[in-house]
């Protein structure tokens, strides 16, 4: 651990975290892109600083996505989409500084909890990843979709329409089994499908700007936060149950390759709402609505590395870049890594710890100026936000077509808001659609078309039962609310 008293390693961690926060805060620059941009610089570095650098960018970027999600309703990363719900509402009420403080502290709690899980339970948790067969992945996607009733905010039928629309968008592109193009209308740009981040930026950010342009001024609050406000001890205690829900769900989703922070954040939000004493406050600026998803997606940051370290399976794009960082230095993640290069594994753990500390300290420094920035006069702010959106979207694939898609989703989001249709089920449909379809069909291929495979697999059966319970509970609550 001597490396972590080395000033150059500490500086690397702070630099990486700062780069990650900035990258994560820019819509279109995903954590994996922010990491990939720095990967070439690690060639000439020693293994430990190289891994610390990549891990720091990863942690910073996963956190950074929440900043624009809260302040301008633009999720910087997929996983930050759930944070827009109450975070942006708090910012609209003039409580942006409080929302940023809750996000920072909950992110820290989640990051440290996830790191603890990673350190003490990597090997046993790896068995969870191995237990996941295609039927179990299908059931996991169904479990994710079961939160739609809770996210529809009392408009279940409209929520189902939105979810169907999301699932339709998810089927655009090359068929996952036979490779046939579907719904591409001859466009090569659509062959790879539509990235969820494009849908989210359109539905949340562009739609919000289209609404705001028709309003005389920002909805004025009595007093706007102009400084970052960390939660008081009393508020922190109040947020603990929501953070605990986020930590639990984030641990489970993180160790499952491919599940990711987005599903974890939405599920954590929904469960925090379900178990809250005041569920009606969610969506109207509830601090728990920021704490739960932020804790969840920051736990995933660490726990998503469990399959990478223990099995050599990168469960996400970011983990794949980190894998690249290991390979550059002649190290192969997997069961042997702990025996062959334990110092690098501990280097990674130490890097994650340093990055979480850096995230807190850098957050304390940069969030107040960020708040100042978003309190500028509306005409200039709208223009700057749109400039950021169109630039960030182009940066993903260097595609003008993608900007057009985002504008189309912006118009769709505007129309859905006017029609009173909740957009979150749509987002969930887009995020889970591919996982749902590909694993459903793979399962049937493996079972020779026998649907019993979904109840014969114990993990799938358990997840489907949980999905049934959650849906039943939500429907029962909806029924009680309307009668």
């Amino acid at each position, binding site marked *: 651990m001597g490396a972590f008293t080395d000033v150059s390693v500490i500086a690397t961690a702070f630099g990486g975290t700062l780069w990650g926060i900035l990258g994560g805060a820019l819509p279109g*620059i995903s954590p994996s892109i922010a990491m990939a*941009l720095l990967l070439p610089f690690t060639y000439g570095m020693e293994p430990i600083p190289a891994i610390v650098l990549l891990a720091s960018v990863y942690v910073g970027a996963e956190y950074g996505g929440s900043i624009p999600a809260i302040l301008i309703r633009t999720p910087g990363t997929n996983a930050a989409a759930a944070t827009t719900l109450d975070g942006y509402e708090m910012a609209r009420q003039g409580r942006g500084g409080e929302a940023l403080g809750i996000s920072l502290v909950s992110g820290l709690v989640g990051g440290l909890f996830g790191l603890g899980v990673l350190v003490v339970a990597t090997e046993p948790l790896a068995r969870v990843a191995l237990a996941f067969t295609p039927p179990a992945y299908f059931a996991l996607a169904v479990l994710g979709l079961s939160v739609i009733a809770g996210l529809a905010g009392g408009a279940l*039928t*409209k929520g*189902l*329409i939105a*979810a*169907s*629309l999301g*699932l*339709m968008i998810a*089927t655009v592109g090359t*068929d996952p*089994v*036979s*490779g*046939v193009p*579907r*719904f591409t209308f001859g466009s090569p740009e659509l062959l790879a499908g539509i990235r969820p981040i494009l849908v989210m930026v359109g539905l949340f950010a*562009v739609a919000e*700007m*289209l*609404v705001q*342009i*028709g*309003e005389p001024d920002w909805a004025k609050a009595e007093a706007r936060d102009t400084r970052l406000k960390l939660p008081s001890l009393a508020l922190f205690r109040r947020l603990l149950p929501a953070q605990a829900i986020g930590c639990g769900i984030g641990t489970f989703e993180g160790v499952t390759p491919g599940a990711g922070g987005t599903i974890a954040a939405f599920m954590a939000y929904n469960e925090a709402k379900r178990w809250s004493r005041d569920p009606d406050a969610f969506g109207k600026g509830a601090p728990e609505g920021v704490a739960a998803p932020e804790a969840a997606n920051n736990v995933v940051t660490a726990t998503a590395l469990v399959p990478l370290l223990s099995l050599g399976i990168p469960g996400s794009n970011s983990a794949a870049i980190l894998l690249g960082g290991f390979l550059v230095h002649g190290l192969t993640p997997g069961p042997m890594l702990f025996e062959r290069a334990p110092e690098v594994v501990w280097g990674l753990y130490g890097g994650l710890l340093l990055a979480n500390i850096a995230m807190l300290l850098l957050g304390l420094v940069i969030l107040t100026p960020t708040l100042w920035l978003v309190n500028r*006069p*509306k*005409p*200039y702010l*709208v*223009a*700057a936000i*749109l*400039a*950021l959106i*169109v*630039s960030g979207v*182009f*940066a993903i694939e*260097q595609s*003008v077509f993608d*900007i*057009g898609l985002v*504008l189309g989703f*912006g*118009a769709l989001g*505007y129309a859905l808001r*006017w*029609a*009173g*249709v909740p957009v979150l089920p749509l987002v969930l449909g887009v995020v889970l659609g591919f996982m*749902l*379809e590909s694993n*459903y*069909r793979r399962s*049937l*291929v493996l079972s020779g*078309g026998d649907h019993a495979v979904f109840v014969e697999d114990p993990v799938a059966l358990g997840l489907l039962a949980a999905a049934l319970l959650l849906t039943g509970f939500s429907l029962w609550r909806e029924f009680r609310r309307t009668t």
Partner: protein
Amino acid sequence: MNAATRDITLGIAALAVAGVWWALAAAIPVSLLADAVGPGGVPKAVAMLMAAAGAVLVLRSVLRPARERPARPAHGRAAGLLALLLAYVLGLPLIGYPLALGLLAGAVALYAGARPGLGLAGFAAAIGALFWFVFVRVMGIPFPAGTLFGGL
């Protein structure tokens, strides 16, 4: 438009989208590698789900219409902003990234209520220069340089 009419319109639109999606799914060619479900199987199931939800929404709105009047948003203003953004998309390959972005920022700020003048021009120039520096110089992202100026 009251809430009931709006919901009926939405329900009918959902039925129409579901119908079109089903037709498109049915027309997907089935390859020799296809499984029993086929490339159109899941899209058809999703279309059925949407059609069912649309039908329920129409029926419910007819039998038990919602009474509230939804707010009247400024559709014209939104359409104007969308037009400015589309102009950016069309102009970007022609005039290049920094100029197109500066013009977009200036036009949007003006449209949103900024006073015309040197301040606005300075803002537009600053946005074009700052974003070009961050995205092109620092991150190395190859934005279009503009065919009018000999770039790609």
